[in-house]
């Protein structure tokens, strides 16, 4: 049983014009086995929350805390956070020329597991995980994210998720840029991962579309750098029919 505990988190982005506050007091707790959808309009800071948890150097935490099972996450480097059991599936995965998917996966698996996986079992593990996501085996020989379609990039993110088996997964707009078929494959891959590992999940999204495939336990509405309302899956239905208007007004008024 793991818990990612975020308390009164404030964070700024570092810009040329100086720091600008984006997160304004986020409090959220994600336990193993539970899926939290964080939904909000563009520019609300929901992706910043994902990056701050992962430790992107562009952001500076000014107050508050993030703990994973009681360990202070904020003092960890980016790679230490990943090895501690956090995983961020990125909205815009980065191209790494000259590094094959197969090298990359094995290097990260070695880092996260603390030892190099045995070659024979590893190859089978990788092959099976790729088959599950309907990925062609030649995919392993391509360079990381180089020339990948939107769907391929997201499948590759979920492939990493299923191989690295984090305690807490953060999915940042994984549904963006996916057609219906790709969304279904990616969602099924995620659901299989969740079922197998019982990991906790923070699912960040603008649209309710992905929630047809991945059922959340909790839905949080994120506006202007904080959570303004929390509820069950029914809250997503409200957002679907009414949009964010009501909440944007509420955030401005408060």
């Amino acid at each position, binding site marked *: 049983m793991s818990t990612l505990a975020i308390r009164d988190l404030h964070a700024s982005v570092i810009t040329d014009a100086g720091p600008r506050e984006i997160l304004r007091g986020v409090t959220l707790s994600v336990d193993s086995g539970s899926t939290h959808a964080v939904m909000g309009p563009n520019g609300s800071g929901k992706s910043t929350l994902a990056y701050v948890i*992962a*430790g*992107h*150097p562009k952001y500076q935490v000014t107050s508050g805390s993030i703990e994973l099972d009681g360990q202070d996450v904020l003092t960890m*480097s*980016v*790679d230490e*956070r*990943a*090895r501690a059991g956090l*995983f*961020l599936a*990125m909205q815009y*995965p*980065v*191209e*790494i*020329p*000259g*590094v*094959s998917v*197969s*090298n*990359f996966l*094995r*290097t*990260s698996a*070695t*880092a*996260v597991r603390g030892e*190099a996986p045995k*070659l024979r079992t590893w190859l089978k593990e990788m092959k099976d995980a790729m088959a599950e996501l309907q990925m062609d085996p030649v995919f392993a020989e391509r*360079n*990381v994210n180089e020339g990948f379609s939107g769907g391929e990039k997201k499948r590759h993110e979920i492939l*990493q998720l299923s191989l*690295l088996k984090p305690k807490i997964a953060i999915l940042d707009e994984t549904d963006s840029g996916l057609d219906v078929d790709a969304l279904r494959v990616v969602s099924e891959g995620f659901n299989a991962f969740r079922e197998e590992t019982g990991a906790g999940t923070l699912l960040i999204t603008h649209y309710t579309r992905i929630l047809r495939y991945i059922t959340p336990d909790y839905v949080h509405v994120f506006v202007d750098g904080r959570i303004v309302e929390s509820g069950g899956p029914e809250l997503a239905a409200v957002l679907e029919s009414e949009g964010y208007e009501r909440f944007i007004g509420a955030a401005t008024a408060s």
Partner: protein
Amino acid sequence: MTVLDAPPLDNARRISSARPEDFVVPHGREEEWRFTPVAKIAHLFEVDAQSGDLTVDPGSHVSVVDFRSDDAGHWLPTDRPSVIAWSSVHRSVRVEVPADTVVAEPIVVRLRADRARAHGHVDIRIGRGARATVVVVHDASADTSGAIVTDVGDGANLSMLSILEGSVEHVHLWQWPTRVGRDATFTGSAITIGGRVVRILPSVSYAGPGGSATMLGAFLADSGQFVEHRTLVEHVAPHCSSHVAYKGALSGAGTHTVWVGDVVVRREAVGTDTYEMNRNLVLDDGARADSVPNLELETGDVASAGHASATGRFDDQQLFYLQARGIPERIARQLVVRGFFVDVLARIDSVEWREIVLQRIAQRLGMDADLERHLEAAE
């Protein structure tokens, strides 16, 4: 001085001559020397009686012969260091592959210096229709200068690697002129990861139509090294192609790399297909990379002609992505730098030597032996 006494100009309109007096000692302000720290290499501008020959163990297709200025290949020196080397060498290394011969195994030429300063002349002759791979491994344990003069016969196919690795203490000034025969194919890869001050001038000219030349380069420089490559392709025959791709990664205070790529397409070279590219990856604030592509067209009747040059900083987003997958920063950096070279090195024909070069680059990057092993296993 009359016109008749003037030294002859070679095809590239540079002076070609075997006489040291035809070349003034560079002072550093000349166009072709403007990047080079000439004060650090000035001793190689003069003959030194104490210098020795670079030699090699004779083997299959490889011999050591008396150097004769009138039988030293298709080329004459074009600058002060090369004419001094020419004047100093007593014995030269000859690599000869007879016509219509296929040599399956790479011919490895390990140059060896037994003095603190040594000069070399390597004369490579690939006969008509022959096919071979030649690897020249430079000795980085002495100050060296000289030339690798390569002649690829009509219809022949030569894949060559010139590797300078090891110590970062010494000066290395080399010319690498190649003549590509009619319908011949040449791939010349320059791998430079050693040396204190390095200046390598690979050049290609064509002896007939239909020739194809690929010039590849990978260089790594740090801790104040100076590494300069000047490539020159002279299209003098119709329907030839040239493809130049050089990549460098550099770091550290005072480190300086230079790539100057000259391509000249003469009026008679119709149907030319040429492209040159240089990319540099600057890993920190202290290092500087100069990149100068020059394309000179004397005819508009070409198939294709282009160039590209870019010098970029290390991409922190790549680092973040790799670290977000648990990979420690140091290893992540090594992966990115190694990966940077992969597309150029993938074009080295010999699989065996491609792997060796990647390994050496990894070692030079201080890559963990463990990582390197499991990368191999993964591949």
